C-alpha cells in the first residue's frame, strides 16, 4: 500500500501517474472527486483518489468513532487483498486539509478531524508514504 498526500492542486495525481507510468500500465483509477465509490478490486493496481472526500461523505452520516472503524476495516481488507498476490497494490491519494484555521461549522471540524485520523491510519498501514509539494516528492516513509 502506498499513501500519497500533500496540499490541494499540488500535482499529487500527476505524480502518481508518472511514478507508476500509468499510461502503459493496466490499472483502475477510482476518484471520489467524481463520486465514484470504492469498488471491486478487479485490477492488480488500484488507485483511489480523493480519500478526504470519501471521508467527508461518511462524516455526514456517521460518528467519528464509526468512521475510523470503518476506514480501518477497509485498510485491513485492502492489505489482505494485497497479501494474496505480490503484484497487487493499492495507492491512496488524499489532499491535506489540516493546516487552516479551525472551521466555523461543526460539520467541517468533524470532517477535518476524521480526515486527519484517516490519513494517520493510511500512513500507518502503507509501506510507503510520499508528500508532494507542487510536483516535488518527498518520501516520508
Amino acid at each position, binding site marked *: 500500500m502506498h499513501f500519497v498526500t500533500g*496540499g*490541494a*492542486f*499540488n*500535482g499529487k495525481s500527476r505524480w502518481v501517474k508518472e511514478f507508476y507510468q500509468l499510461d502503459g500500465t493496466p490499472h483502475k483509477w477510482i476518484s471520489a472527486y467524481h463520486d465514484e465509490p470504492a469498488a471491486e478490486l478487479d485490477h492488480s493496481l488500484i488507485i483511489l483518489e480523493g480519500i478526504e472526500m470519501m471521508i467527508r461523505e461518511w462524516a455526514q452520516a456517521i460518528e467519528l468513532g464509526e468512521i475510523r472503524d470503518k476506514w480501518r476495516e477497509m485498510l485491513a481488507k485492502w492489505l489482505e487483498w494485497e497479501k494474496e498476490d505480490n503484484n497487487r497494490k493499492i495507492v491512496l491519494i488524499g489532499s*491535506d*486539509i*489540516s*493546516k*487552516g*484555521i479551525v*472551521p466555523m461549522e461543526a460539520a*467541517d471540524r468533524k*470532517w*477535518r478531524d476524521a480526515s486527519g485520523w484517516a490519513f494517520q491510519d493510511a500512513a500507518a498501514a502503507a509501506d510507503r508514504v510520499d508528500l508532494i*509539494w*507542487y*510536483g*516535488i516528492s*518527498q518520501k516520508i516513509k
Partner: protein
Amino acid sequence: MAEGSLIFISGGVRSGKSSFAERTAAELAKKTDGKLHYIASGKAYDPEMEARIQRHQDDREESGLSWTTWEQPSALEEISGSFNYQDIILFDCLTTLLNNELFRAEDGWKNRGFQDKLSSDILRAISEFRQRCRSLIVVSNEVLNEPIGENELVFAYAKILGTLHRNIIEMADEAYLVEAGIPIQMKGEPA
C-alpha cells in the same frame, strides 16, 4: 545571453519567507555586483496593509542596500521589458498578484478561458523577466493545505495558484519552503 536564475520561495504567513528572499537577493547582488529591484504586488487598502508594506520598506532601507521599488499590483508583463542582465529582481508576492488579477476581472474569472489565460500570462511574464535579468526570486504563500470548499472563486484561485506553483518550480533552479524562519531547500543544489 544566458537566461537568469529563477528561485521560488514559499511559506506560511509570518514564516520569514520575505526576509529570506531579501537576504538571498542581497547576497546575489553582492556576489555579482548586481542591482536590486523589488516588485511589490501589495496594494494598501487599509491601515493594516499600509503598516505591513511600510515595515517591509523600512526593512529594505535599513539593510543599507539600494532597492528600486516597482509597484505592480497586476499585469506583470507591463514592466517585463524594464530589466537587464545586472538586475536581481525580487517579486513579492504571487498570491497577492493573483488576488488582484481575479478581483480586477469582476465576473470574468468565472470563464475557464480567462483563468487559463491569466495563468499563462503570469508564467510568460515570469519567463520574460528571467530572460532579461540575472536572477529572479518569486515569493508566494502556502495556502492549499486546508479545505478549498465549494466557493467557486476560492476554488478557481486555489487551482490557478497550485498550477502556477507547479509550473514555476518546474522552471526554477532552486525552490525553498520556509518554516518558522528556516528555509528548507526542496529543489536545486545547496549553495
